[in-house]
């Protein structure tokens, strides 16, 4: 048997597209947030509310990743933002090439902020860089407070975390202090926003943070 050294990046194609996306966004001073969570955590509801909450202040575009259907993109369009749907046809994550194509379809020169709503999955999307400015994780109360300990990759990498559905805190066993402490152990710099997208409790802090992000980028 003979051994041959190769030393090649396996996901080089993804890395190259991610690099291109990152340059494309930086040239336009356009912040882009890659939103990652389990299915059903409320990503789309959060985005729809955010679009309404920041109307007139921040112009938002959304890249919607789903395995099938354009249900989420239609909810985003109904909320009044530009949206591009990507169907991954079974793939568990968005790739940088798909985001590259979607960015060409968004009216980027008329936007202040782009959200990428990744495929609902707490594992795979965190391994694929898309060229985003930062990752945002969403954890919802019914999922349980053990998720940061069980799925550390995304919580270690995210710049912000929304703990959603806090209106259910009394109804399920979810120790929000434990969840927050577990996340902070992995990632001291993360911003944590306890929110209910449904009742809008806590959402204004999140809007303020986003507004700041778009202002910092423009300076």
């Amino acid at each position: 048997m003979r051994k041959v050294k190769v030393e090649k990046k396996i996901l080089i194609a993804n890395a190259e597209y991610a690099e291109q996306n990152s340059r494309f966004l930086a040239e336009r001073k356009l912040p882009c947030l890659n939103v990652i969570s389990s299915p059903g955590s409320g990503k789309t509801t959060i985005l729809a509310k955010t679009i309404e909450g920041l109307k007139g202040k921040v112009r938002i575009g959304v890249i919607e990743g789903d395995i099938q259907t354009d249900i989420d993109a239609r909810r985003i369009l109904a909320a009044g933002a530009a949206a591009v749907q990507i169907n991954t046809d079974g793939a568990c994550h968005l790739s940088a090439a798909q985001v590259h194509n979607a960015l060409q379809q968004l009216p980027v020169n008329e936007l202040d902020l782009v959200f990428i709503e990744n495929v609902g999955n707490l594992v795979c999307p965190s391994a694929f860089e898309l060229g985003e400015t930062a990752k945002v994780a969403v954890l919802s109360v019914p999922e349980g407070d053990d998720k940061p300990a069980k799925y550390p990759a995304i919580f270690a990498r995210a710049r912000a975390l929304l703990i959603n559905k806090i209106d259910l805190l009394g109804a399920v066993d979810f120790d929000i202090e434990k969840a927050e402490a577990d996340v902070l152990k992995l990632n001291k710099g993360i911003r944590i926003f306890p929110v209910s997208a449904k009742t809008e409790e806590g959402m204004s802090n999140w809007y303020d943070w986003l507004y700041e992000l778009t202002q910092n980028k423009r300076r």
Partner: protein
Amino acid sequence: MHEGAVAQSLLSIISAEAKQQNAKPLAARISCGSLNGINAEALNFAFEAISKGTMCEGLKLAIEQKPIRAKCKKCDYTFTFELHEPTCDRCQSDDFELLPDAPLMLEEIEFEDD
């Protein structure tokens, strides 16, 4: 869970190398950061499925998980990040920055002797 996509890329890189070497590849060693979420069993299973009937059929993949590195913001020391005890090895500070995860790399291929 995304081993299918990884297996597809691997197959094309290994096939290209095999053509160049003009030999049958028997095994390959890959490395990745441990936050990459790559499972050896699932990757071998995916690779087996898509390599049927190609010159890579029967190839065995070995995966080396590389630890996560972090840099202390207090004392600048770079250390191996342990999930169960995420503090700086030198000054025990819990204020650190995670360094980028090691990328998924195809390190080495073993070929059949001519």
